[in-house]
């Protein structure tokens, strides 16, 4: 396992960067669709995408969300340790790459802004997708507004403290 260096604009502040070198036909991406489906079902079935769950979390009236995120972090961390320890490769034999996150003040300012929006909408970006699929069509507007927010951030980026 190696840590990727930031080399181009695509890496700036992105968390999900494709480090794969193998060329695939488009339908190879269907495997991500399948992972997404399982993920989306989990979101709805555990009621993680419930606006009320998010209120409970921040009002400290339920353990549910802390349990979900805590378990996910522990399972994720153990998995990463196993990958490191046994030097597990991708299905195509490539070395697994973890992007190193650089600290900048955006994590504070942006984090606070996202936190405020999270409690208002009851959703982070993932649940917005699940809401739309679950039939809450009006959340399509919230989604477009989130795209607009991302665009305005990109536009103002050089003027913002980082």
């Amino acid at each position, binding site marked *: 396992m190696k840590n990727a260096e930031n080399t*181009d604009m*695509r890496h700036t502040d992105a*968390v999900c960067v494709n480090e794969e070198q193998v060329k695939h036909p488009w339908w190879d991406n269907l495997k991500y*669709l399948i992972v997404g489906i399982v993920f*989306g079902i989990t979101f709805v079935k555990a009621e993680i995408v419930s606006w009320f769950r998010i209120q409970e979390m921040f*009002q400290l009236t339920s353990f549910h969300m802390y349990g979900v995120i805590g378990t996910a972090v522990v*399972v994720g961390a153990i*998995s990463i340790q196993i990958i490191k320890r046994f030097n597990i490769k991708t299905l195509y034999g490539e070395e697994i790459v973890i992007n190193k996150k650089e600290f900048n003040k955006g994590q504070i300012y942006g984090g606070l802004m996202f936190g*405020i929006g999270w409690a208002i909408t009851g959703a982070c970006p993932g649940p917005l997708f699940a809401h739309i699929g679950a039939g809450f069509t009006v959340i399509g507007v919230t989604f477009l507004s989130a795209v607009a927010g991302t665009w305005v951030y990109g536009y103002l980026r050089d003027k913002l403290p980082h």
Partner: protein
Amino acid sequence: MLELIQQPWPWYVAGIFIGLTVPTLLIVGNKSFGISSNLRHICAACIPGNVKFFQYDWKKEIWNWFFAAGIVLGGFIAMNFLANPDAIQVADATKSNLREAGVTDFTNLLPADIFSWDSLLSLRGFFFMIVGGFLVGFGTRYAGGCTSGHAIMGLSTLQWPSLVATICFMIGGFVSAWFIVPFLLGL
């Protein structure tokens, strides 16, 4: 079996599934778990303008859209084929807090009195659906990730900047849930 799936899933089941997404994406294609970057890729593909932040090869990130499309489909499947017949679970204390603030619908994932086409153009709806969404989009990109990228992927890989981001998400959320949301509900 189907009956078991239809019940609301406990937190540890959800946590295990979500946690396993991290190694799954790494092993099937060296992808770091993250969702909010999708929004950036949409900007880069559709409305890059002259903004340097959106000038990159977004085609390399198409996998992320497939993942997001899967979440939409998963939401559809869960709601239409695996739905729980009962009302969703809400803690009593939160129920009474919200009832005091004016929420009346506690049956579904989103309260219909706030999130609906009818209320979209009311002042309250505007803040909950449009301003809220804007803050999510702006804030996640400014922070460089959301709950998946920072709180789950970042903490799983023991990166301290993600811990800072996660703590800030929580501080923002507490302030919002205690002071801003009750105010907005009263609009």
